[in-house]
């Protein structure tokens, strides 16, 4: 997968990160923090390669 951006998104009460809003293969996706999710697993590999998920706004 070609991941070009990734940023955490938090819940409405601002208590926790809920997902990663990522651009993957040119498509904006809201990716849950679930290792069983294929895109999230790819994001974790992307992080392991030295990339960083940006903090939520």
């Amino acid at each position, binding site marked *: *997968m*070609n991941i070009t951006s990734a940023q955490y*998104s938090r*819940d*409405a009460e601002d208590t926790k990160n*809920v*997902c990663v*809003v990522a651009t993957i*293969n040119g*498509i*904006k*996706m*809201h*990716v*849950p923090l*679930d290792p*069983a*999710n*294929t*895109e*999230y697993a790819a994001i974790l590999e992307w992080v392991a390669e030295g990339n960083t998920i940006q903090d939520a706004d």
Partner: protein
Amino acid sequence: MSKAAELAALIGSQTALSNRNLIINGAMQVAQRGTVTSASHDSFGGPDRYKISETGATVFTMSQDSDTPTGEGFANSLKLDVTTEDSSLAAGDFASVMYNFEGQNLQSIKKGTSSAKSVTLSFYIKSTITGTYIVQLYDNDNNRSVSKSYTVSSANTWEKKTITFPADTTGAFDNDNALSLLVRWWFSAGTTYSSGTLATAWESSTSANTAVGQVNAVNSTDNNIFLTGIQLEVGEQATPFEHRSFGDELASCMRYYQTAVPAGGDIFGTRIIFGGHIVSGNNIFGFVDHTVPMRAAPSITFNNIAVSGFPSGDPTVNGYGLTRFEVYKTANANNNGSYYLFGYEASAEL
């Protein structure tokens, strides 16, 4: 095949008389995404559950097509139309289509045990390019692989292929919802994948041994490849294709992908709506129930958004589950007739 031969095949298969086919959507009936152009890398498109896996220049248009083998009871096929060719393969170039399995759906194979079973793959293929093709099983849990070759004898002609893969007493599939096994139909392979000796028995995966002899079927934009009637079953005997109802196949596909607006559907009446009386600055919540529980919490892509009293752009996802997800949007107006409409795609593909 005569009725007696069909019965003999079923009995001889030593497997169930129903639910034999481990493949979902083998007859290519369900195509929720519709036609997808510019399909490369990890693209899904056309019939559900089939995924392009590609590195290099090759680009396909993936679609559901009505071109099928005559008299076999199929109405649909997967069509791969080469729209960008890769006529001069670099070492690492390849093009393929994959079907991925959850490990918990493969326990009947007994892989990694002393009583491991062979599996038999049957399918129909029609391709512009004749020659040797490779189909591979890859065990993602244990990094093991086996490949078999077959021949496309006549250009642009439907041919049925039946291939039995040996049992593997090494490396069990995990009993979970993650990727354990993939079937890969190779259509081109650079030397990285073809410079060794074809692994016709299970072995620790070696790239050079996976697609030895594969013809380049993507060397021209004139090329098309069609597949249908795909069946993978336990045992050494290919039985007649197990046709299932559209509803059964659609529900099975929805475990991996659902959308508010399926291909060919009308966005009006199918999008999700919330709104009504709003106060600027307030968060307005909505939720979406999945038609069937999904394999894992899905990635969500939003589309067809229309607003009044809300800013444009995606809603914020506030929570995920296998059966629903929750979103909210912050109003930017004081309004009694507000609305926020959206479509979505939810993907829990492997």
